[in-house]
């Protein structure tokens, strides 16, 4: 067995974002230990924000010298860079949104920020990994950190339950994924994504077994992105977890999971395309339908957004069904836009909810438009983006996805999907109706002004959503360019 390992500085550069996140995570914990007991812990949040910013810079630098690193364990390419960036932005905004929230709940602890950072490490690894072992480890890092975050307010019954559900079901699904990896390993002898592709192209393995392996991995990924019928956990967990955490869970890990989902299925399993395309077709449709239809009857905003996140996963799966470069680019764009609008919505909800999240029903939003016109307007922007109204990122993403679908001749899926988005408008509008068309209720009547950090988070998300909707060109270009990586 030859021992040739040369780990060059380039390798480290390519892995720098993750490294920086880890380092800052550790620093946060150490600083916390050093802080006097009475002092405010907000500075830890700021520190982690700095860490994320640094990681972001490193991400850009890493992209300058793209390529594989650490014996093909990871692959820094435009695609990975894009998702790393999404994850980092998500983390940044979520931490911003968390600062005031944790203060309010009196749970300001360094662990929270460290866990956020570590979770992002896992997601960044997912975005760039090019070997199934990295996929597994990245997924676990990301997930386990998120399990803890979901239950971070440990005295809160809903948090506990969310954490337990997410944890047990997540581990359960991961076992399936892992079993799939085992089968791939057994069939091909390698877990490198490119190797798998090469082997499958040659077609020496029984297609049925490759299909089995793909199926088991599909279960794992589909669970993480909350695709039907593996979506059950999502509403419960998003409802139970703290609002900023829900914002984080429904965007960052989801984007990362989609990143690797796409990479595995479009790179490694592309030769099996004919097998899985109809599966994904049905899955996409079912996901859209279940998410949207079930959301119609929700009265809890967080739960509603949970269902909506299922539906949005369905739209992204449409892009996977298209399995084309445009489709990938569309999914990338969509996930970025979705991240912004969803974080924005959750951030506003976290503000409205007040202490211990007492006010999370739709009627608690009543009259927000009169009490806080600016916050209300921003929430309206997020909701309209979720509906898919033009000039918001949500629209352009959806538009681009369905265009990709039509380019791949998925006419019925397009029509049904767009109909779905029409039906979806109904439940989103319930929020708008509450904000603008109802008299202020008790919840909004006693609303303290939002904290500065939350305001920044909301404004940034809103500007991002509008920017993606009005000037999608730059992001789209980058997405398109980097989508070429998945061939």
């Amino acid at each position, binding site marked *: 067995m030859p021992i040739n390992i040369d780990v060059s500085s380039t390798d480290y550069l390519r892995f720098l974002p993750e490294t920086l996140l880890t380092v800052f995570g550790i620093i946060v914990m150490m600083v916390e230990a050093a802080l006097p007991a009475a002092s405010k812990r907000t500075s830890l949040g700021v520190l982690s924000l700095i860490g994320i910013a640094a990681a972001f810079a490193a991400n850009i630098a890493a992209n300058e010298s793209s390529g594989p690193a650490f014996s093909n364990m990871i692959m820094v390419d435009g695609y990975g860079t894009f998702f790393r960036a999404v994850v980092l932005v998500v983390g940044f905004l979520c931490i911003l949104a968390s600062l005031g929230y944790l203060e309010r709940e009196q749970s300001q602890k360094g662990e929270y920020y460290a866990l956020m950072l570590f979770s992002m490490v896992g997601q960044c690894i997912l975005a760039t990994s090019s070997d199934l072992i990295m996929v597994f480890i990245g997924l676990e890092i990301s997930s386990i950190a998120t399990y803890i975050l979901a239950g971070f307010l440990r005295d809160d019954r809903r948090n506990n339950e969310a954490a*337990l559900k997410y944890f047990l079901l997540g581990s359960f699904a991961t*076992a399936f994924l892992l079993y799939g990896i085992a089968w791939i390993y057994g069939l091909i002898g390698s877990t490198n994504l490119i190797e798998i592709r090469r082997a499958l192209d040659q077609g020496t393995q029984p297609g049925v077994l490759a299909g089995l392996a793909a199926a088991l991995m599909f279960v794992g990924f589909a669970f993480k992105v909350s695709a039907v019928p593996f979506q059950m956990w999502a509403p419960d967990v998003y409802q139970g977890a703290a609002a900023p955490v829900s914002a984080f869970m429904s965007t960052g890990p989801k984007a990362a999971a989609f990143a690797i989902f796409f990479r595995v299925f479009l790179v490694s399993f592309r030769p099996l395309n004919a097998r899985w395309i109809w599966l994904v077709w049905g899955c996409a449709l079912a996901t859209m339908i279940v998410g949207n239809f079930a959301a119609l009857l929700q009265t809890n905003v967080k739960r509603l957004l949970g269902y909506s996140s299922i539906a949005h996963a369905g739209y992204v799966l449409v892009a996977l069904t298209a399995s084309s470069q445009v489709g990938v680019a569309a999914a990338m764009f969509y996930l970025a836009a979705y991240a912004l609008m969803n974080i924005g919505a959750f951030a506003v909800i976290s503000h409205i909810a007040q202490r211990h999240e007492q006010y999370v029903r739709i009627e608690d939003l009543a009259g927000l438009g009169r009490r806080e016109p600016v916050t209300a307007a921003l929430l309206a922007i997020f909701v309209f983006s979720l509906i898919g109204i033009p000039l918001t990122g949500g629209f352009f993403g959806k538009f681009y996805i369905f265009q990709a679908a039509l380019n791949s001749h998925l006419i019925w899926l397009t029509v049904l999907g767009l109909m779905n988005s029409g039906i979806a408008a109904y439940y989103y509008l319930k929020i708008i109706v509450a904000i603008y068309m109802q008299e202020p209720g008790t919840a909004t009547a006693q609303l303290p002004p939002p904290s500065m950090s939350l305001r920044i988070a909301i404004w940034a998300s809103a500007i991002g959503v509008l920017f993606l909707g009005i000037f999608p060109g730059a992001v789209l270009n980058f997405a398109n360019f980097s989508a070429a990586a998945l061939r």
Partner: protein
Amino acid sequence: MGHVPLSWYLILSVILFALGVAGFVYRKSVITVFLSIELMLNAVNLSFVAFSYQMHRIDGHIYSFFVMVVAAAEAAVGLAIILTIFKNRGTLQIDEVDSMKL
């Protein structure tokens, strides 16, 4: 003859995996459910090692190793979560952890 076909190992793995799933689906104590997950992971490990033997490569062993580490980490976190549940609800019955639904 005298040698065991590798497929037996794989089928054993399948059975154990399925038993893990069964435990998850049928057991009502949170801890047992969690144990079932460990059983599933063990089953997967068996597959990894068996496939490694087939190809005479030890990457599978590395996987198993990592799985163990992950399992250990999961155990720590999972048990901590179970602790909080027990503290807040005073029960370990999984069916009673269903306040969020519909």
